[in-house]
């Protein structure tokens, strides 16, 4: 208190006084989980001293098991793209449940505009539109998907900001509407046989490229732009944001639009990767995306969280998935462990917050 009363103390901008960033804890947790799998690989009798992440073969051209590293990140990349959007929504103290079905609906729409006319010399058996929609440049299905996402996001945001519908309800409704659109689009039939150029945007490690590029872009946007600052301000104290002259309603619509566009983009990439689109795609993706953000240290009451945290949360997700496969444990255990980790992450975070206050 002496430091703050007038006459003593000083004005400082001291970098060294920055607090331990929350992201470091998640990184630490990630390392601990990796170490646990590493130990299990050595200790479990049926594992024959395999290493989880390091190259255990008799070769010296690589330190890490690159194949496993690639799989770990590849299998979380598409949900990770959704998580980048849901992170922003949760920072404003909102939630977006519509992203999973939006992935499916967008996949259907984009794939319908990405089909080839001829499959092995015969007309495309899964054709949705006529010949005019065949062999279009790759940009068209991508842009169509993004526009659809923007529309859905604008509707979500408008109901939430202007009609004051709780985000949970508004996006729950949209969750069902989007699944309905996906089922209705081609009468429940899969849409398939895309052009080679469309396949190429989701081929191989492309989903990882998109995920990491978008993560870098949105990390920058959230940290260094007015959009980012206002997003945090609204989640932190909406009343204060309004009194400071921020157009809270318009900003919320923008946040939901960006989140839905990211989910739509995930749908486009997923359909390109799978070379097909089905109405049942993206099941539970919205919840996995929220889980990644939560493991990444986001606060559901808003104001706190970061893209780096969410990327690390996605990595925890991927490592656990891959680790359970590595120690040959069934998927059912994976789900149980994941659930436990989500709850543990929130408990630890609340404990940390309480101790700080």
């Amino acid at each position: 208190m002496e430091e703050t009363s007038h006459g003593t103390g000083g004005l400082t901008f001291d970098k060294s006084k920055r607090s331990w960033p929350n992201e470091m804890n998640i990184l630490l947790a990630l390392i601990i989980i990796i170490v646990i799998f590493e130990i299990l690989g050595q200790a479990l009798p049926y594992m024959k001293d395999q290493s989880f992440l390091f190259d255990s073969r008799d070769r010296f051209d690589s330190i890490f098991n690159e194949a496993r590293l690639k799989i770990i990140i590849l299998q979380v990349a598409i949900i990770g793209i959704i998580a980048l959007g849901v992170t922003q929504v949760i920072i404003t103290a909102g939630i977006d449940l519509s992203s999973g079905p939006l992935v499916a609906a967008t996949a259907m729409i984009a794939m319908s505009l990405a089909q080839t006319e001829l499959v092995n010399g015969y007309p495309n058996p899964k054709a949705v539109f006529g010949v005019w929609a065949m062999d279009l440049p790759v940009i068209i299905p991508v842009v169509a998907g993004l526009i659809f996402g923007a529309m859905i996001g604008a509707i979500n945001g408008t109901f939430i900001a202007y009609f004051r519908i709780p985000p949970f309800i508004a996006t729950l409704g949209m969750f069902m509407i989007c699944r309905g659109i996906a089922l209705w689009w081609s009468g429940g039939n899969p849409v398939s046989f895309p052009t080679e150029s469309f396949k190429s945007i989701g081929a191989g490690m492309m989903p990882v490229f998109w995920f990491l590029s978008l993560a870098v872009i949105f990390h920058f946007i959230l940290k260094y732009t007015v959009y980012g600052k206002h997003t945090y301000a609204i989640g932190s104290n909406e009343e204060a944001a309004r009194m400071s002259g921020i157009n809270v309603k318009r900003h919320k619509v923008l946040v939901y639009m960006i989140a839905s566009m990211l989910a739509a983009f995930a749908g486009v990439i997923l359909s390109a990767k799978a070379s097909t689109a089905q109405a049942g795609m993206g099941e539970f993706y919205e919840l996995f995306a929220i889980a990644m953000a939560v493991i990444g240290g986001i606060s559901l009451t808003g104001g706190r969280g970061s893209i780096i945290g969410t990327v690390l949360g996605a990595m925890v997700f991927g490592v656990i998935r891959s680790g359970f496969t590595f120690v040959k444990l069934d998927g059912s255990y994976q789900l149980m462990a994941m659930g436990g980790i989500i709850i543990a992450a929130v408990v630890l975070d609340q404990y940390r917050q309480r101790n700080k206050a």
Partner: protein
Amino acid sequence: MSEDIVLKAEDLTKHYGGVHALEGADFEMKKGEHVAIMGDNGAGKSTFVRQITGVEQRTRGKVWLYGEEVNFAGPLDAREAGIETVFQTLALADDLDVPDNLFLGREKTFANWLGPFRILDYKGMRKATLAGLEKTAVKIPNIRNTIQNMSGGQRQCVAIARTATFQSRLTIMDEPTAALGVQETEQVEHIIKTLKENGEPLILVSHNMRQVFDLVDRIVVFRRGRICANLAKADTDPQDVVAYITGAKTGEEYRESAL
């Protein structure tokens, strides 16, 4: 109208449905003057402030700022015109640090063609923050701390420093020390005295009689939505003011309207 009049309000009225929260308030303050607004709970003090600062739209009446008639559509308009308000509810974002809060809604930026994605000038905002804190003699150990890690007094100081960072032409404080301890209150009062020395006009809404008599030049008393007294500090004393607040007494010129 003279440029010496910082703020003038005529017949300022606000009805919330059938509730007459503010009725026909006439108010005037001169350059460099510090005026206190006193009154019981629900007397119309905060309502008055909300009409002046554009947080709400008045039912009736006119407001002039430095001789110019103003109609603020929102708090940002009032702020752009030079009215800085420290609200009772503080209006700070807990998860942001000091410069972020000071510049919330009017950030210094680069590349403005990027629209909502224009880039924040963190360095410029830090500099201006330190200058603003210096001007008000506010001491905060580290401006990079988020608001949630600060004491009530420090929070109040941040809210007040916001007014000094932007060359305000009129500062309004709504119960700035209501939730503060003795030492913190002293700190805030010190800042108010600094503003007085710098000749910056101030409206102080307060319940604290000692504080009001310590800090201001003039006291305006509200009762049941109406102004019932306008007293120069030299001509009055705390008992007198209490009499006006409770309704035992009503100012000569207000007698008709207060019945």
